């Protein structure tokens, strides 16, 4: 399966019928469970048994509880998903109380991803239909219950802001008063549910305030790291600095002599100091003066890894796409261009360091953590402890940033291994240094790209060879088919441009001891940089304007062309800038959304780069929450820009050389550009947007740098030029 195929599955997922089941809540309200019938029979049987409290609960107190299957990690999904429900349910958004979902693939799987996982910018896309259907079904049932009480035709009643009015408009009933009666009714069949057309939306397309913001400005919101469990101890940890290493010597007596330290736990790959508070645990960890046996990977270094990738890139890879006859086109073309592009390992560095609180008992394991993958985590803990899955109770929390790092259960597994030696609950917090040095990194890519052009400089053949480690092969082995990593070639295999001959192949090279994983923007964040840089190279070689050059290759792709034109227009493309400044443009289709960005960049005499302004045009289909789209463009752009300007993880003697925000420096408020978002009005189904801007920003900036300096950046980070 390719990601493009996953996107195509949107349509299939959306056409599937939502299965609904109604029941009464303990408090006498209406509970509505809905499940998108999936491949799994478990889904049907779980819904049939009514074993759940319901996705939606309308309680007699008037509050509407919505169990949100996706996690909130800043992207605003608690608000956007609640809006989808509220639009059809006809309630005020602030009457909805979002709640974290417990792990359960059968009930809470994302219809696109087929598991309860928050990633691939798939939340709004996945729940676009089911949540609106659930809202409409609940409204129909509530209206029917009111109509029965009044003995009138339900079709002539209306509902608005949680209040039902009879046909005369004389009588009204709030939802809460009929919730109990509605719970006795059968949910409407899917074909009886008529959803609003985009023109009828009153909430979708507006920008209400985020539902969870109040807790976040007052310090009340509990992230994973804030879990409080009575009697818990606190652990500071040191993980072997070289992958595969082990603790050789630990001064336990010195650690235990620190006031507040209770216990020293030594496991295969790490040491944990257990104490009354983290301050004592950290002090104890220092006193323990751990010495390590580095094991077999102490010789690993960045130069060796890059050499290994370079050698790999010289071999033919597994074919991701092969249209036309690339070989022949290269043989007969007027000119050819070849380039090598490199992108570094990257850490995620979410603001909330990795952490997990565990209470392991004989018959159960209780976990408090913020995770993008609750069900995977539950299964892996069950396998580790030998407990049945049901005995692994996971309390998901707000995430202090995810960016793909919390798609990995490693932090929870490590905490459970430590908890196996601790009597009672323990909170394990990684230091920032551990967080950066034991991340699961965005792969290093070493790609070769070539194009053949005709006499006018237009591309007639395109060959992109992607070379790097495979995240999919490790993360989701069943999706790694015939040696092809669909994510590694996403954004390369289906560029927005029309090339008569195109070959994209993939060479998998796994560097020793470095584990690689998904990073915000996933495949596109690497490929869009290369495709959009190389297209720019061709445009300049042809002495053509980069926007005009792209336009000619987009006649088949109106949505891509429209965002390109909009970004260019809003940015004032073609208008003169002072010396030392220039604009660069980029374009992408990824996550079901079209984006184009123009970067305005200044380069001073010393080669220092300052990105002054970013203009972003977005076509993400129906814009569910415009203010959230702007927030995600701001966020994604800054995340991608930070990496493009100076993000790099390097390895020396088997160790990660970066350790904290001084050596892996984030952008700060005094450095960020002005960022403008322009949204194309659309009635297409929503596309994803949490990652799109991260993927598109680097080439807009490097293309601008080329326009100023004539220097083409083919290796990230940019640093100074």
């Amino acid at each position, binding site marked *: 399966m390719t990601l493009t195929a996953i996107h195509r599955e949107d349509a299939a997922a959306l056409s599937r019928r939502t299965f609904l089941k109604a029941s009464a809540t303990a408090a006498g309200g209406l509970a509505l469970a809905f499940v998108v019938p999936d491949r799994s029979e478990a889904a049907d049987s779980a819904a049939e048994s009514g074993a759940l409290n319901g996705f939606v609960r309308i309680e007699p107190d008037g509050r509407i509880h919505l169990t949100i299957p996706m996690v909130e990690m800043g992207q605003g999904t608690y608000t956007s998903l609640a809006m989808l429900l509220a639009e059809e349910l006809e309630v005020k958004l602030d009457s909805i109380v979002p709640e974290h979902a417990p792990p359960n693939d059968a009930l809470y799987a994302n219809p696109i991803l087929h598991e309860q996982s928050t990633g691939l910018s798939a939340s709004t896309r996945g729940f676009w239909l089911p949540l609106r259907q659930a809202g409409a079904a609940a409204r129909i049932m509530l209206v029917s219950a009111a109509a029965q009480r009044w003995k009138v035709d339900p079709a002539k009643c209306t509902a608005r802001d949680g209040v039902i009015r009879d046909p005369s408009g004389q009588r009204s009933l709030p939802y809460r008063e009929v919730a109990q009666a509605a719970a006795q009714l059968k949910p409407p069949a899917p074909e009886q549910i008529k959803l609003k057309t985009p023109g009828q939306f009153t909430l979708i397309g507006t920008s209400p305030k985020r539902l969870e913001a109040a807790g976040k*400005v007052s*310090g009340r919101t509990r992230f994973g790291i804030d879990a409080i469990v009575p009697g818990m101890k606190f652990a500071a940890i040191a993980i072997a600095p070289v992958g595969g290493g082990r603790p050789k010597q630990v001064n336990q007596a010195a650690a235990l002599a620190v006031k507040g330290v209770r216990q020293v736990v030594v496991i295969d790959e790490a040491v944990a100091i257990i104490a009354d*508070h*983290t301050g004592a645990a950290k002090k104890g960890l220092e006193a323990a003066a751990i010495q390590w046996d580095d094991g077999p990977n102490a010789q690993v270094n960045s130069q060796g890894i890059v050499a290994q990738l370079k050698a790999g890139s010289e071999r033919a890879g597994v074919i991701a796409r092969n249209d036309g006859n690339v070989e022949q086109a290269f043989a007969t073309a007027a000119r050819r261009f070849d380039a090598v592009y490199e992108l570094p390992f990257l850490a995620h560095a979410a*603001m909330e360091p990795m952490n997990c609180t565990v209470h392991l008992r004989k018959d159960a394991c209780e976990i408090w953590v913020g995770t993008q993958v609750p069900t995977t985590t539950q299964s892996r803990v069950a396998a580790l402890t030998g407990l049945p899955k049901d005995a692994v109770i996971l309390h998901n929390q707000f995430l202090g940033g995810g960016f793909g790092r919390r798609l990995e259960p490693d932090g929870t597994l490590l905490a459970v291994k430590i908890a196996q030696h601790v009597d009672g609950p323990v909170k394990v917090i990684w230091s*920032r240094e551990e967080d950066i040095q034991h991340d699961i990194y965005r792969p290093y890519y070493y790609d070769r790209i070539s194009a053949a052009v005709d006499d006018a400089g237009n591309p007639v053949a395109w060959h992109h060879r992607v070379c790097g480690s495979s995240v999919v092969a490790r993360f989701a082995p069943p999706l790694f088919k015939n040696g092809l990593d669909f994510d590694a070639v996403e954004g390369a295999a289906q560029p927005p441009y029309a090339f008569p001959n195109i070959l994209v192949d993939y060479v998998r090279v796994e560097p020793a001891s470095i584990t690689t994983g998904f990073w915000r923007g996933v495949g596109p964040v690497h490929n869009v940089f290369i495709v959009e840089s190389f297209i720019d190279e061709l445009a300049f070689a042809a002495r053509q304007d980069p926007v005009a050059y792209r336009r000619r290759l987009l006649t088949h792709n109106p949505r891509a062309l429209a965002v390109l034109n909009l970004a260019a227009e809003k940015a004032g493309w073609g208008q003169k800038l002072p010396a030392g400044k220039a604009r660069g443009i980029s374009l992408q289709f990824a996550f079901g959304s079209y984006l184009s960005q123009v970067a305005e960049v200044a380069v001073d005499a010393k080669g220092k780069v300052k990105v002054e302004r970013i203009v972003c045009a977005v076509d993400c289909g129906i814009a569910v929450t415009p203010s959230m789209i702007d927030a995600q463009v701001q966020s*994604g752009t800054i995340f991608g820009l930070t990496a493009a300007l100076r993000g790099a993880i390097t390895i020396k003697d088997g160790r990660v050389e970066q350790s904290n925000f*001084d050596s892996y420096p984030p952008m700060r408020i005094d450095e960020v550009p002005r960022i403008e978002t322009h949204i194309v009005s659309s009635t297409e189904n929503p596309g994803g947007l949490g990652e799109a801007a991260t993927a598109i920003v680097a080439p807009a900036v490097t293309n601008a740098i080329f326009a100023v300096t004539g220097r083409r950046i083919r290796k990230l980070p940019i640093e100074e030029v």
Partner: protein
Amino acid sequence: MAYVLKINGASHTIDADGDTPLLWVLRDVLQMTGTKFGCGMALCGACTVHLDGAATRACITTIDSVGDAAITTIEAIGQSEAGRKVQQAWLDLDVVQCGYCQSGQIMSATALLMSNAHPSDSDINDAMSGNVCRCGTYNRIREAIKLAAGAKP
């Protein structure tokens, strides 16, 4: 040895080593989890609290260095006029995303406004560049500070 700390108007007696960072006393001993841990080296500002009104990084402030200074945390910042205005501006402009750094951002912004009612862009840069936000909410933070200061954002 025990230390007496004045936090949000109340006195707390803490039995811990004097070199214990204030951050862990707040979070682990007193269960005031609004103040966040981000880096442990005063590089990110997530742990910002006020000591007698001045923005201070709790992760490197040892409890034996606090003396009788009044400690204010995010839990109580809304009781001051500047803090309340900052929190409201944050809500009005929907600043937060993941929200993890925002306690520290709000504490730094409030300290700025308490000492400088109408900060310029450059004042904002100076006061806020110690606070990292990986979600990239910086542009809205800048607008929200101006809104709280009564300027048109």
